[in-house]
């Protein structure tokens, strides 16, 4: 079984771009699934499109896209270096709770408190994420496993803190008090707030660092060939810690933006229900860790999910179908086009 190298194979005249083929394939499989549950797939897809890209629904799409793209960038950074961070949920929750605590208890004028809250969220979540990198470099625990296993205690402890020490006892729900108005993120229009701009800035910085800076070059080098990067003088341990810190910090900022800009309090499990982490990870995988591609894929998944709400409203099809579609896209690309294959 000596399969010829992909590059050596004679070029075919025309090839569909892999991503488009994958989306088409996912739409077909999803269509069969919808058909089997007794609904009209064409109507379902029409509702998704209309519910995400029509003029009236664009703000909602953008509002959904901000955290999702944030988590996509967070996942893309380690992935670019051949590492996988599965602990986004824990990092996001740590960031969210930290920002709520700082915004509630720091005796400072509103905007200062908000800035401090976001900074604290980034640091807390970043440090927690780099714990996984430290475990790999010092204790040989693979990051793939440890980042995920560390996520459960983080979620559990934050859940405890919001249920007991920081609980708003005036309501019956597990949530903190409302954050004072001055410390909330300014609204732009409708559901959008300046958190969106922060995400745009982070995304732009990630693309710039990836393409133009030495750290980005070294990280790509590691992703292509870790041993060569080490041989070439890259401090692999430090690099792993930094990449995970950056990834976790972005996850923390996403949590903070959701708390300070949308919910105005930390509510137990509210950050995890939309599963931004996993959609973001899939977007990053789709682009193989390339930040710009991850951002585009994140926007696409955000549109898909926002459209999913419209579909659920207008038809009988549950919106979790969009998660299935995303997973099929990834699987198709991984199986058919060697997505993520390290020696490709």
């Amino acid at each position, binding site marked *: 079984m000596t*399969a010829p190298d992909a590059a050596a194979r004679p070029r075919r005249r025309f090839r569909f771009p892999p991503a488009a083929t994958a989306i088409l394939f996912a739409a077909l499989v999803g269509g069969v699934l919808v058909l089997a*549950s007794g609904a009209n797939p064409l109507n379902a897809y029409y509702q998704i499109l209309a519910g995400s890209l029509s003029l009236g629904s664009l703000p909602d799409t953008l509002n959904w896209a901000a955290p999702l793209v944030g988590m996509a960038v967070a996942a893309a950074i380690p992935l670019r270096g051949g590492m996988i961070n599965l602990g986004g949920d824990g990092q996001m929750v740590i960031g969210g709770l930290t920002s709520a605590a700082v915004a509630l208890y720091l005796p400072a004028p509103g905007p200062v408190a908000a800035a401090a809250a976001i900074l604290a969220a980034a640091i807390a979540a970043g440090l927690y994420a780099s714990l996984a990198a430290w475990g790999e470099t010092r*204790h040989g625990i693979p990051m793939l496993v440890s980042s995920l296993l560390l996520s*459960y205690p983080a979620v559990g402890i934050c859940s405890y803190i919001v249920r007991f020490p920081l609980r708003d006892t005036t309501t019956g729900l597990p949530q903190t008090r409302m954050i004072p108005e001055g410390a909330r993120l300014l609204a732009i229009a409708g559901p959008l707030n300046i958190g969106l701009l922060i995400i745009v800035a982070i995304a732009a910085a990630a693309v710039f660092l990836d393409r133009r800076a030495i750290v980005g070059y070294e990280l790509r080098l590691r992703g292509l060939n870790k041993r060569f990067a080490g041989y070439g003088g890259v401090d692999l341990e430090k690099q792993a810690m930094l990449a995970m810190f950056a990834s976790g910090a972005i996850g923390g900022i996403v949590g903070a933006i959701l708390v300070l800009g949308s919910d105005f309090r930390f509510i137990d499990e509210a950050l995890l229900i939309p599963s931004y982490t996993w959609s973001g990870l899939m977007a990053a995988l789709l682009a193989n860790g390339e930040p710009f591609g991850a951002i585009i894929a994140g926007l696409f998944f955000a549109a898909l999910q926002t459209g999913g709400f419209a579909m659920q409203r207008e038809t009988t099809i549950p919106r*979790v179908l969009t998660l299935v579609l995303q*997973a099929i896209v990834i699987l198709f690309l991984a199986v058919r086009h060697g*997505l993520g294959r390290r020696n490709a």
Partner: protein
Amino acid sequence: MSGWITPFLIHSAVQAITPILLAALAGSLCARAGVFNVALEGKILIGAFAAVVASYYTQSATGGVAAAMIAAMVFSLILAYGATIFRGDHVVICIGMNLLASGLTAYLLRVLFGVSGVFSDPAIVSLGKIRIPAIRDIPIIGWGFFSQTIVTWIAWGLVVAISLILFRTPIGLRLRGVGEQPDAAETLGVNVAAYRIAAVIAAGALCGLAGAQLSLGAVSVFAEDMSAGRGWIAVVAVMLGRANPIYVAGACALFGLADAMSVRLQGEGLPNQLTDISPYAVTLAALVISHRKRRRAALPSSEVDAASPGGVAEPQPDTR
């Protein structure tokens, strides 16, 4: 301390171990064949869902178990063929499968039963317990096993069976060869892809059993994402036990004990948000300790160690 080890604690520990043990045996088979299977989590979930659906419609727990195994085996085909014939990246495929399992079960739950979150119904027949009153009062073993499902007995039987197959039969020898030196195995006429496909599908059957125990064993409900990291704990158990079924079972016993202990701690008045984290904390601690021991035993090869904790090399995507 002796007051802590109660018959109830041991009994619930054995119950908690079963799904993790079955998944870890599945993971060991794959690791031995050179497939880094981290889709255990998703396979358990598919198994748990299929078990509840089939038990609900056929009114029989046996039907549920059979459906769970078949569904998880079919689901495993993605990894079986994706990682061999199509040469996809194991980890990416597995992450995709875990997410697909989570989304698909949630979707079907809503479409089939019109509920979200948790599905329970009196029509779901749970697995019967095999009661052996004779061993009831024997400390530890008897406490643990006097009243368990058939799946638990199968799981511990499989520990022995898989050990024998792996280390005492020609098939086991070839399977290990495929994992350790695929090129050499190929040269000797062993069909590498076929062995890997078979290992992954067999792993699917084991994970299906694990799922059936989860949803029909102690309870008879399906909850979204009810596998709750058990597949990942199984991955760790495979690493700690170096893919040797006996050691892997030991690692699983540790996690099961931690799980049962967390229930016990809840009884002492600790909030369950805190006690729920104990299995994960124990898992992480075990990883750190085991690595430390090994490093003291063999200092020079720290570079290799870091890449393959537990001695089970993460298989490099070979050029086949």
